[in-house]
């Protein structure tokens, strides 16, 4: 997770290693993009150029793939990624209102990042946790059975819990029932 727009020297080295690993193999582009995005958090233009050169593809081919798939992002992401599920089950149970409320609360558009770079707000299609609808995921934590009030409470809670959250990242699952 990062919010500085520049790529560090070590990151460039790691990127080159990934390219080297896949060079010459069939259908390498998507796995390379995935691994590189894991390294930098997003795929800025200069990184896309580097991948294109490394895999002997045109930059337009790389950009074509990056812009096609929802998994890839060309803008940096916030410290916590909020993903509100807009799958049918969640939508029927009011997840649109949760998304609207969060946009207002955080003053950010869907797909955008807050001014303090703490949160990215994303809408996703079905997280497959329909039994807990409506659902949102903040960082690695799944929150189910939400309403707009609860959603606001949850996002307000995160910045105040910075130190604790770092510790629990990865296994912190919060049930809001």
């Amino acid at each position, binding site marked *: 997770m990062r919010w500085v727009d520049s790529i560090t020297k070590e990151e460039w080295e790691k990127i080159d290693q990934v390219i080297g690993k896949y060079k010459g193999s069939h259908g390498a582009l998507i796995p390379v993009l995935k691994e590189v995005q894991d390294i930098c958090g997003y795929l800025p233009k200069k990184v896309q150029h580097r991948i294109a050169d490394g895999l002997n593809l045109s930059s337009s081919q790389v950009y074509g793939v990056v812009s096609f798939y929802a998994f890839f992002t060309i803008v940096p992401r916030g410290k916590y990624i909020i993903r509100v599920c807009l799958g049918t*089950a969640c939508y029927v149970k009011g997840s649109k209102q949760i998304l609207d409320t969060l946009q207002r609360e955080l003053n950010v558009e869907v797909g955008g990042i807050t001014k303090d770079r703490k949160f990215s707000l994303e809408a996703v299609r079905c997280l497959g946790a*329909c039994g807990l609808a409506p659902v949102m995921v903040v960082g690695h934590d799944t929150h189910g059975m939400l309403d707009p009030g609860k959603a606001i409470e949850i996002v307000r809670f995160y910045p105040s819990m910075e130190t604790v959250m770092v510790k629990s990242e990865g296994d912190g699952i919060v049930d809001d029932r």
Partner: protein
Amino acid sequence: MSQLTMEEFEKIKEKAYSAITLKEGEFRCMVCAGTGCVSCNSLKVRERLEAELEGRGLSERVKVAITGCNGFCAEGPIMVVQPKGIFYRKLTPEDIPLLIEEHFLKGRPVEKFLYTEPTSKEKIPLMKDIPFFQHQVLWALRNRGVINPENIDESVARDGYGGLSKALTSMTPEEVIQEVKISGLRGRGGAGFPTGLKWEEGRRYPTFPKYVICNGDEGDPGAFMDRSILEADPHAVLEGMIICGYAVDSHQGYIYVRAEYPLAIHRLRIAIDQARSYGLLRKNIMGSGFDFDIHIYPGAGAFVCGESTALMYSLEGRRGMPRIKPPRSTEAGLWGQPTVLNNVETFANVPAIIRNGGGWFASTGTGGSKGTKVFALTGTVYNVGLIEVPMGTTLRRIVFDIGGGIPEKGEFKAIQIGGPSGACLPASLLDTEVDFDSLDEAGAMMGSGGLVVMNDSTCMVDTARFFTDFSVDESCGKCVPCRVGMKVMLNILNRIVTGQGTMEDIPQLEELGRHVKESSHCGLGKTAPNPVLSTIRYFREEYEAHIQEGRCPARVCVDLIQFRVDSERCKMCGLCKKICPVEAIAWEKKAPAMIDRDKCIRCRSCIQACKFKAID
């Protein structure tokens, strides 16, 4: 173990079988570790359970195992205690000491953790007696909640890889294909193409190498069948793929699975490693001389990649855009080579067909649709979860017997079947049988199996708009009807839900929808107008209410809601004030509530909270 002969395989099976068979006085706690239960803490429940059992010296007598998705996701975290099959639900780690004390020491089920039937309030201890499970027939999901998906031995003990061993030892590839043809199995991904025919075609082309692909790119919102199968019984899918490889003479398989399903990918990786270590993959499988290997390919998130040719482009590292057929994929698919692609559920059905024969499979179902179908039942029903029913079961049975009906005072309004390619069917069509052909007739589609139940607080126009928005978002942009046509339909729907629609909009939507259906290039475009067309067909009056009266009957479309309290209907209970996240509601005891419209953010929390429908 590097290689496994048939005899060694039989020995492993015997040993594994006795390992999962409980002796007198032993118990086995099956803790659900599907995505739903994990996100309500089931792994912490297991940890606590193991620790407490250990602490009390019970761990010899009471074993703990994790299972894949049990199916009854709404009741998670779930634990089933064998041998009897006592069903515990909504457990927390703090409940465990009491549960152990009562169940394992005093020998009586703990009533407060048992399932309660929502209407009769009766406690039902045994899983098999719960209506949700009673009407199901588990074929594709036969191992769910019974085996630990991360242990191949448990799968083998329950006949896992038995179909493969039969195919490799006593059947020719042609006989395998013939058996699948007799079974009448049709593709479970949505289109329903006969699987046997596809395999036959795949075998016919003498170009090598050939590929087998398992499509696990389950993009339908509100559907999680494939995820649950992969999480609960990954070996069934692998076995189906290997059998397919044998039948069509392919030696390489790929599983394309959504990156949003990390647990499914994790379990698949474990399953593939274990199958390889038993010699059930790679070279000379079971000493038969047949080679086959499988690789996992996590998708990158694009609904259109569920279309087979698009999926293959994606596997090749390109934009996933469907191409013109013919040639079919069975002739020229991945890297231009013959490729047989089937859905997760289709492959999961294959081992049992080979073991029991095609005739056994064909004995269940309707004329054109054989066997069973897995559905993800969600929305406003009591029992949300994953179900498997014989083809030909009516929607009514699914919603009211298995789903337990509509909660609270809500009334059934529609059932959405088939996701963004499907339709919303009204109460009058509840006796429709689920089979490929009768759903087609109703203007719906089997789809991959998402079933979303909607009550009277769901707006049909808004639902159509939701799916159209989805299709616009996910259209790959290759052909004009889908790219532009759907966008124009979305614009019209946006006008209607904001109160700017005209009566000409309805026939225009119908006409556009027909054109998009007829002239689009791939399955996505050909079915994308279904949600709009079906809601106009069955819920036209709602469109008219939006346009002519500027009113949203379900009070969903915020531009058509006044956010005003009707003081006659208001019972002065104050619930709306309590739920309002921005304190825009003024209320005092014995006085009707008042909404401050400057503060109100139109989130509809109050409307949902109000039991008296007093907010317009």
